[in-house]
């Protein structure tokens, strides 16, 4: 208990509390702006953290991290453009809900689900960080491959009603991510001899183009007279408690999925949100309405992606392995401040670990208030005259696309993705499968090929590993589920 008090002492200082406050606000802001994401936010403050104390520096970065994962959902809901790739699944139900005029309610669901997901993962971190870290070491490339295949089912789940088109879009996404360096042989693929193409298609400019620019093109293509004037509710509306009750089980499951995926280095919040969305599609109370502005979809995606934040700290703190690019930057800062992550951290610097827990709790609670107060501002953006709003979206999208790598090719990527997205939408293709394909492509391909190197070329050896086998069986079951349900329904009728 003394150590806990010491941890509390670290956090209850003006500088630490101030850093939590500033970090969270900044995080939500970079999350909201499409293209600017968690990594850019953290890098922006990196120079300041060197001269700050240990705890305030950590507080600032954790605030930005959690805030940005949440912030991405707001732009997904309001302008149908995930502010960060992590929020891609949020747009699926968030935007239709906003179109219905319930942007305030959508932000309410997303905010509450985010905060619950975030807090849930802190609890996970507190209870089981060292054990989970040890468990994550059972995941070699072979298990990552199995997990990637499992996550891929989400493509089918978001494509109901346009299955062939959805699968095709997913395949396009998988393909686009193969352009550029082949990470296993070092060869160049599909670059057509162009040096610029060797950098590959970057995910963020592609998302910015696919969603934001294609939205601009869509609106520009519609004649002004046809445009329905939607009376948008502005502000922030929390769904009543009675609405939460039937969704508790879904919430708990999504939080668990997010927390688990977060402990695996190199997966991330986007994958977690897709897996949770798939599971919601299979088992949520209103699964048939998913994709039409159903709260279930928001709850699943947002609680899962925010549950990643706390648990991504598990391998970072307990093993010294960063879970994603964001925690990698954080890890660098830990070391500058004389904190050495690794198994010993939990025995020798427990006060610091407690301080990190407390900071995460503070950040998540603060996020709720920022969401509640800030959404006034965000939802008002919807009432802006459309030409103005779309101009702003275009400017932000271009800045975001270029800002990530400073590579002019990314601007062309964003533009072409915008045109491509426009054509696909006009032709009735869903865009989400394309993003899912792009997010998962490299993980699936690289882990498959690494796995084959490890097994010296044997596919059969993949099925000898219990965790991988379990995931393969789950994948098969998930795919067969609609058929099973249909059979069951028929038997009941008969």
């Amino acid at each position: 208990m003394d150590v806990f008090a010491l941890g509390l002492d670290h956090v209850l200082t003006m500088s630490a509390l101030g850093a939590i406050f500033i970090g969270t606000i900044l995080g939500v802001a970079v999350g909201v702006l499409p293209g600017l994401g968690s990594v850019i936010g953290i890098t922006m403050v990196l120079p300041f953290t060197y001269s700050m104390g240990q705890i305030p520096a950590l507080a600032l970065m954790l605030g930005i991290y959690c805030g940005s994962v949440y912030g991405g959902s707001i732009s997904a809901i309001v302008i149908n453009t995930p502010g960060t790739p992590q929020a891609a699944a949020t747009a699926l139900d968030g935007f239709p809900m906003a179109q219905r005029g319930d942007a305030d309610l959508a932000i309410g669901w997303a905010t509450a689900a985010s905060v619950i997901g975030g807090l849930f993962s802190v609890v996970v971190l507190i209870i089981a960080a060292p054990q989970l870290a040890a468990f994550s070491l059972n995941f070699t490339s072979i298990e990552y491959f199995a997990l990637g295949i499992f996550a891929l089912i989400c493509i089918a789940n978001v494509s109901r009603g346009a299955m062939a088109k959805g699968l095709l879009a997913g395949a396009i996404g998988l393909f686009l991510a193969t352009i550029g360096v082949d990470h296993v042989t070092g060869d160049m693929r599909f670059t057509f001899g162009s040096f610029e193409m060797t950098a590959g298609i970057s995910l963020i400019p592609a998302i910015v183009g696919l969603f934001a620019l294609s939205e601009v093109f869509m609106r520009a293509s519609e004649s002004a007279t046809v445009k329905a004037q939607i009376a948008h509710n502005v502000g922030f509306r929390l769904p009543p408690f009675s609405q939460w009750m039937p969704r508790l089980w879904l919430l708990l499951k999504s939080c668990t999925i997010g927390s688990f995926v977060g402990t695996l280095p190199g997966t991330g919040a986007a994958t977690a949100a897709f897996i949770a969305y798939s599971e919601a599609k299979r088992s949520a109370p209103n699964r048939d309405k998913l994709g039409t502005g159903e709260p279930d979809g928001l709850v699943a995606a947002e609680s899962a992606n925010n549950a990643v934040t706390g648990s991504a700290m598990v391998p970072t703190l307990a093993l010294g392995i960063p879970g994603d690019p964001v925690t990698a930057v954080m890890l660098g800062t830990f070391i500058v401040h004389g904190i050495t992550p690794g198994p010993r951290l939990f025995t020798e610097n427990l006060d610091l670990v407690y301080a990190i827990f407390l900071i995460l709790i503070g950040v998540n609670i603060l996020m709720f208030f920022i969401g509640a107060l800030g959404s006034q501002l965000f939802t008002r953006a919807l009432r802006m005259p459309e030409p103005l709003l779309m101009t702003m979206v275009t400017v932000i999208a271009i800045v975001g696309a270029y800002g990530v790598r400073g590579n002019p090719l990314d601007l062309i990527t964003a533009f072409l993705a915008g045109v491509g997205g426009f054509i696909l939408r006009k032709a009735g293709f869903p865009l989400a499968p394309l993003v899912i394909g792009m997010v998962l492509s490299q993980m699936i391909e690289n882990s498959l090929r690494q796995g084959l190197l490890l097994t010296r070329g044997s596919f059969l050896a993949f099925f000898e590993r219990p965790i991988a086998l379990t995931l393969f069986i789950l994948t098969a079951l998930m795919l067969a589920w609609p058929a099973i349900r249909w059979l069951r329904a028929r038997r009941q009728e008969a």
Partner: protein
Amino acid sequence: MKFIRSSIVALAAAAGLASTALAAEFPAKPVTIIVPFSAGGGTDITTRTLAGPMAEALGVEIVVKNTAGAGGTIGAAETARSKPNGYTIGMMPVGPMTTQPHLRELPYNPESFDYICQAYSAPSSLVVRKDSPFNSLQDMLEHAKANPGTLNYGVQAVGSIPHVAGLGLAAASGAEFTFIPYKGSAPTFKAMLDGSVDMFVAHISFLTKNSDQVKSLAMLTSERVSTAQDLPTATDQGVPMHFPIWGGLVAPKGIPAEAKAALEAACEAGMNSEAFSSRMADLRMPLAFMGSADFEAFVNAEFSKNDKLLTAAGLKK
């Protein structure tokens, strides 16, 4: 009043001096350093740490610009293509300078640059898990020779220095490894902890940070490292090897001599500053300044050394 008047006079004089200085000398405006990797990585952080004190020495601001992609070659090409006036330079690490040009056709080569200074040179180390049965390079090599191809050697990227070092080790000792490429250091480290790979080559700062979980079989240096006297080198253990992970400032070919001299001096001053040297000391990295001429000769030597190793391994395109 008198004080104010004299201050104004002094200010005006200073302004006058400054403007004549601007017209005649380098630098007259902010300098941009291109980092060919993303913000927040090791190269980026080292560059940003150096940029502060270097800007003080130069008397103008330094802007760090990250142009990432394709193993650092996009940023290197951008540097080579920039106007050779000294206002755009690049922090170029060993990979894009001396290994990538052998792996595929690039719009630049070492001839495309003027050399300013070497800014860092991290000794590398062959690391294994702390609980590994191997305690020396010889232990490991004996096992590898008795069981050819069974040991997995993780590499952070195909054709990177850790990979080239492994090829060098295999060539020098006659041992065989199965190379497994991951994407960056974190996944490679994870693969070693989960038992997928038996060893990999890392930066000395990695060894410092993770001394709980890994141990060094050999430092891959020609002599013992000043900041790690206790760690035996591969050379000590009968396999002469030298694979530092270095980087330095380069400019597009043909910058004015005075700009080159001013940047070289500022680089040296920046590296000797308290801010930079204490950060290097934290990471157990020796300060490794090298002036323009030395650095150029060194890069050319590294270029042909890596050429030979990559050609012998059949990776050269």
